[in-house]
């Protein structure tokens, strides 16, 4: 990695538009002027309802579709250049792999395609297959795998060459709760190792747990890009207090609006003891739903 690429965004979409032409001259605007920069080393969640344009954006990043206008760059290189995908691991939505091959054979193929040395590749294949808990099934053809197991192979083939950037389209899809927990753990581990993770999901709780930033796309437009931490902090609109009367021993629970908190606390008599004070927050899901319903004003397309 050169000093120049260190300062480049990992993924950069500039005024990206995509129009699909259908039969009978019909046109569908899948993306409208999407501008976004995903920083190196961050975990970016891409949220949006079905048909919002998440997969179109991801396919543009991976060079699977050609933008109608605008550009996509990966580490400063145009996404149209196959070399730009060298530092990228990609998991498509509902992945499917050559079902006559075994999981191990497929991973070896992927690793060799990325130019990995044979010895390292063997070790990494074993490591990721064990990490995804499909080591025992490695010699079975993929056609005998369940949907969840294929999803695990998909994640394994993303990890096998240890990419700097991971683009994951619905990585939790088809996984059982254990699998989802495992993937979240993997994403957090990647984050701790400075990897960039860009993933789309419908599951807002996953974004809350693992993401640094979140982008919300609606009808092909990027409506908001926010720091998850800030959304969570800004979402505190009141506090729930549990108060005990030291004389009578009675315990009462009150909910105070955020601006009124200070005045309320000053007004408490000395015999009132605060047992618990916790914030009442608007969560990411409410933030998302407000955007979807148009309740919140459209945010600027952030960089």
């Amino acid at each position, binding site marked *: 990695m050169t000093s120049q690429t260190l300062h480049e965004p990992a993924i950069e979409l500039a005024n990206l538009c995509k129009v699909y032409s259908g039969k009978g001259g019909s046109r569908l605007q899948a993306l409208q002027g999407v501008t976004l920069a995903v920083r190196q080393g961050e975990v970016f969640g891409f949220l949006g309802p079905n048909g919002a344009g998440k997969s179109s954006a991801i396919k543009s990043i*991976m060079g699977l579709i050609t933008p109608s206008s605008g550009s996509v760059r990966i580490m400063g290189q145009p996404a149209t250049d*196959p*070399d730009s*995908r060298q530092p990228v691991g990609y998991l498509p939505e509902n992945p*499917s792999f*050559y*079902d*006559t091959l075994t999981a191990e054979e*497929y991973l070896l193929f992927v690793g060799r395609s*990325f130019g990995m040395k044979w010895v390292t590749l063997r070790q990494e294949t074993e490591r990721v297959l064990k990490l995804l808990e499909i080591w025992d099934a490695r010699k079975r053809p993929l056609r005998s795998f369940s949907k969840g197991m294929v999803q695990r192979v998909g994640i394994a083939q993303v990890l096998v060459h240890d990419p700097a950037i991971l683009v994951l389209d619905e990585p939790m899809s088809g996984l059982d709760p254990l699998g989802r927990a495992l993937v979240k753990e993997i994403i957090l581990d990647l984050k701790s190792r400075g990897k960039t993770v860009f993933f789309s999901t419908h599951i807002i709780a996953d974004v809350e747990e693992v993401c640094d930033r979140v982008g919300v796309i609606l009808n092909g437009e990027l409506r908001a890009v926010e720091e998850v931490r800030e959304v969570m902090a800004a979402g505190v609109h009141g506090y729930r207090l549990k108060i005990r009367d030291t004389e009578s021993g009675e315990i009462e629970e009150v909910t105070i609006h955020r601006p009124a908190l200070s005045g309320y606390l000053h007004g408490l008599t000395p015999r009132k003891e605060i047992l618990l004070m916790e914030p009442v927050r608007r969560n990411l899901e409410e933030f998302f739903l407000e955007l979807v319903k148009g309740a919140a004003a459209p945010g600027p397309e952030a960089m």
Partner: protein
Amino acid sequence: MRFVMFITLKGFFRDRLVHGLLISLVFFAAIPSLSNLSMRQVTELSITLSLSMISVLQLVLAVFLGGTSLWKDIERRYAFSLLALPFSRGRYLLGKFLAVALFTLGVAVVLGCVTCAVVTIAAASYPPDRPIVWWNLLLAIGMDACKYILLSSFAFLFATVSSSFFLPVLGTLAVFMVGSASQGALEYLGSSEAATMAPLFKRTVSYLYYLVPNFSAFDLKVNAIYGIPVSGRGMILTLLYFVAYLGAVISLAMLLFSRREMK
């Protein structure tokens, strides 16, 4: 590219179609007995039947393996992960095509060996009047393989633009029929029977002759059956024609595939 070729080849060996082709090899076992029905031309008939059998099997391979190899990758969504790997679509397509071409050649080698065994058995039961020219037999099988590799390239070309199974398969069959008849059609236009035809029609057909492949040029069956010497110059010209035509079709396929939207 070579990794795509290797996994594609691996997939072929585990494919049901190929297992079916292997089973069809048992028909070769019947050729010596069938050839004896001709009484006098046992060896000639055994060569004819063997070469025809190879042609049929290679045609099935070109149409179904060539026509569905790329189409299946797209239809079953394998291509979404493959095309995200750090190589161009052109190299991916070339890797897939080389796998089909190598497999076709491999099948030709195996069937060539089987043919040699079959013809030897037939000739032993009824010695031929003229010696068997083994070299001609092998050349006929080799040129036949070239013909079907060229046909496979058309299957790939159709698959790059089609989202359905029908165009690659039916289009390839149509090219096979047109390519097999093109030489005959041109010769007919030059004959006295075609004197009354409209000049515009004749000119159009002659232009089309240069556009569609000429599979007759690859046909050395008569040379193999009757031991007629093969023209070295003709062979070289046909091979040059094969390389140039194949290069043009595959280049066009690569160009079209590089623009295809993987929705």
